[in-house]
C-alpha cells in the first residue's frame, strides 16, 4: 500500500465509519424504540428520548395484543387498573374489565362480567358436561386510530396523541357524555367525582417513563402484550407475526389498536 492508496482509504474510511455509527443508532432506536421498557429492553432510555432527554411521542405508536387463550380470568388487571388510575371501586366504572364466555352444546352463549371480588367470578354456573367451550376476554379502550369519541367531542377535550393513545383532558371536558354514547365498546364512563369522561390511557403516565401499563405488568400469564407498532423488535410486532389477529367490531371502521389472538366470533 503506497501513500496515495493509504490516503484514499482514509478518505473513505472516516465518513463510512461515521455513517455506520449513525445507521446503527437509527436501527437501535427503531428496534427498541420505546416499546415496553421492561427488564428485557435494555438501553431503551437513550433510544426513546430526544437529544435533550425529553420523551418524543412521534417516535412511538402504541398498541396492545391480547392472547385470549392465556387469560385465566383472575381479574388482577382490573384491580391493578383501578388502583393505579383512581377508578372508583364500585362495579359501574371500569377502564378495563374481563368477560367470561360460556358456550354450551346447544350453542347457547352466556356472557358474564368477571368483576373485582364478584361472587360469580369463581362460580361455575353451567353443568360442565354441557359446556362446549369457554374462555375469558379482557376488554379495554381500543385506542382506535379512527376514534368516534374524538370525532364527537364538542370541545376537543378528548384527543389522539401522536403516539396513538386517546386521552381526555379532565380540565376541559364539559361532561356532556356524547363520547360515552359514541364509543361502540362502552370503554368510557363518567367519573363520579370529576363529572368528566374517563377511560383507559394505556397508563400513559407510566408508558412515557418507559414502564408497562399496570394491567400488563400484573398479568400472571402474559395474556396482555403491550408494545410499539413503530418498532421492529417490539413484542407487539412479534405477537402480530406469531398469531392470526382480529379486532372488535371491525365493521364500524374504528380501526382499533387492541388486537386479539384466538378471538371467538361470539365476542362483541
Amino acid at each position, binding site marked *: 500500500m503506497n501513500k496515495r492508496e493509504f490516503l484514499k482509504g482514509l478518505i473513505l474510511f472516516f465518513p463510512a465509519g461515521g455513517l455506520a455509527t449513525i445507521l446503527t443508532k437509527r436501527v437501535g432506536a427503531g428496534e427498541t424504540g420505546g416499546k415496553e421498557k421492561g427488564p428485557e429492553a435494555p438501553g431503551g432510555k437513550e433510544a426513546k428520548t430526544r437529544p435533550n432527554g425529553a420523551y418524543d411521542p412521534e417516535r412511538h405508536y402504541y398498541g396492545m395484543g391480547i392472547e385470549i387463550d392465556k387469560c385465566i380470568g383472575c381479574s388482577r388487571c382490573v384491580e391493578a387498573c383501578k388502583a393505579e388510575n383512581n377508578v372508583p371501586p364500585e362495579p359501574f366504572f371500569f377502564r378495563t374489565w374481563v368477560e367470561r364466555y360460556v358456550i354450551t352444546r346447544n350453542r347457547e352463549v352466556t356472557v358474564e362480567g368477571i368483576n373485582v371480588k364478584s361472587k360469580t367470578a369463581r362460580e361455575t354456573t353451567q353443568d360442565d358436561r354441557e359446556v362446549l367451550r369457554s374462555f375469558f376476554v379482557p376488554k379495554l379502550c381500543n385506542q382506535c386510530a379512527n376514534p*368516534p369519541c374524538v370525532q364527537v367531542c364538542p370541545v376537543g377535550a378528548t384527543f389522539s396523541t401522536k403516539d396513538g393513545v386517546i386521552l381526555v383532558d379532565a380540565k376541559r371536558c364539559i361532561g356532556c*357524555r*356524547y363520547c360515552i354514547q*359514541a364509543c361502540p365498546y362502552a370503554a*368510557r364512563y363518567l367519573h363520579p367525582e370529576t363529572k368528566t369522561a374517563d377511560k383507559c390511557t394505556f397508563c400513559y403516565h407510566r408508558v412515557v417513563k418507559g414502564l408497562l401499563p399496570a394491567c400488563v405488568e400484573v398479568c400472571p400469564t402474559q395474556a396482555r402484550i403491550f408494545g410499539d407498532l413503530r418498532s421492529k423488535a417490539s413484542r407487539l410486532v412479534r405477537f402480530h407475526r406469531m398469531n392470526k389477529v382480529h379486532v372488535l367490531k371491525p365493521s364500524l371502521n374504528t380501526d382499533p389498536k387492541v388486537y386479539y389472538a384466538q378471538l371467538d366470533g361470539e365476542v362483541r
Partner: protein
Amino acid sequence: MNAERLQALYELLEQVTGYIYPNEIEIHWSILIVVYPYVTGLVAGAFILASLVKVFKVKEVEPTYRLSLLTALAFLLVAPLPLLLHLGQPLRSYEIFLTPNLTSAMAMFGFVYAWYLMAVLLLELWFEYRRDLVVLAGKTDSRMRWIYRTLSLFSTDISEAALAFDRKAIRAITIVGIPSAFLLHGYVGFIFGSVKANPWWSSVLMPIVFLMSAIVSGIALVVFLYMVLTAVRNQPIDMRCLDTIVSYLFYAVIVDFSLEALDFIHRLYQSEESVKILGSLITNKLFMSLLVLQILLGMFIPLGILVVARAWKFNEDMRKLLYFTSAILIQVGIFSTRWNVVIGGQLFSKSLRGLMGYKMEIMGIEGLLAALVLLALPFLILAIMIRVLPTERLGDQVTRGA
C-alpha cells in the same frame, strides 16, 4: 359520589337482563335530553307554520302568524337549559363557543342556536312588531312606553316606505329562516343519527324523521295555543284558519308516519345483527311508550280523528273538540317519540346481549320535576310576551290616530 346515586345504580343492576358491558349501567342521557329535542322540535315546527304565511302566502293562517313566532321564541329561549343542567361541568359550557371541535355535531349547536335566535327569530319579530311598538309607545303611559321604545330599538319611522321595507325584510328573513329551522332540528336528529355505535339511533332517516315530527308537534302546539288563547280572551275562533292549519297538520302527520314506518320496515327487512336485541327492546322496555303512547295514542288515534273530522261535515263545535283532542294526543305522541329515541337508545347494551333499566329521578337536577319545570317555563314566557306584544296587528285606525 353521593350514596343515593350509587344506591340507584345498585338497584338498576338488578334490572339488567342478559349481558351488558359494565360501564353501561348508568343511563347517561336522562329525561332532560328527552326534553331538549322535544322543545327544539316545537320551535322549528312553530316557525315553519309561521313561514307559511309569509313565504307561501297562505292567508288563512295569518291569525296565528304572530302567535307562532312568539311560541317559537319562547321555546327557543328555554331550549339550551336542559342541556346546561345536564352537563357534568356546566360552568365550562362556554368552551363550546371558544374551542369548538369542528368534527362534532354537538359543537355546532352554539352556532346554529345563535344564528337561529339572533339572525332569524329576533330579527323577524323585530321587523314584524316594529310598527306596532312605535304606535304603542305613542299611546301608552310612561312605564310601558319605555319598554315599547326599548323593544323597538328606539326607531320611530312608520312611514309607508319604512313599512314596505319591513315587509320585504320579513319575507327575506323567512326565506332564510326555513332552511335555518330545518338546520336547527335536522342537526338535532343528526346528533343521534350519526352515532354508528348505536344501532337504534344510527339511521340516515333520523334527521328527516326528527324534522317531520318537529313540524307535526309545532303545528299541533300552535293549534292548542290558539284555541286556548281565544277561549281565554273570549274571542271567536277563525274556523277557516283552524281548518287550514289542521289540514297541514294532517298531511304532516301522514308524512311523519310514513317515514317512521319506512324506518321500521327497513330495519325489520334488513334484519341486521342488532335486530334481535332491538325487537326485545321494543317488546320488553318500550311496549308502553312506543307501541301504546307513540304509535297508537299519538299517531293512529289522532290520525283517525282528523280523517273523521275531514270526511264528515261536523259543526264547528264538534270540529273544535276533535281538533283540540288530536292536538293534545299528538303532543303526547311526539314527546314519547323523543323518549323512545333518547332513552330507548340507552336501554340495550352495545354488546347486543342485554337490556338495562332507567329509573327516573323525581327531585334531582336531572329528575322529573326539573323536566316539568322546563316544559312549563316556555308557556310562562309566552304568557308574559303575549301581554306585552299583541298577537294581532293593530288596526288601521290606530295607525291613522298615531
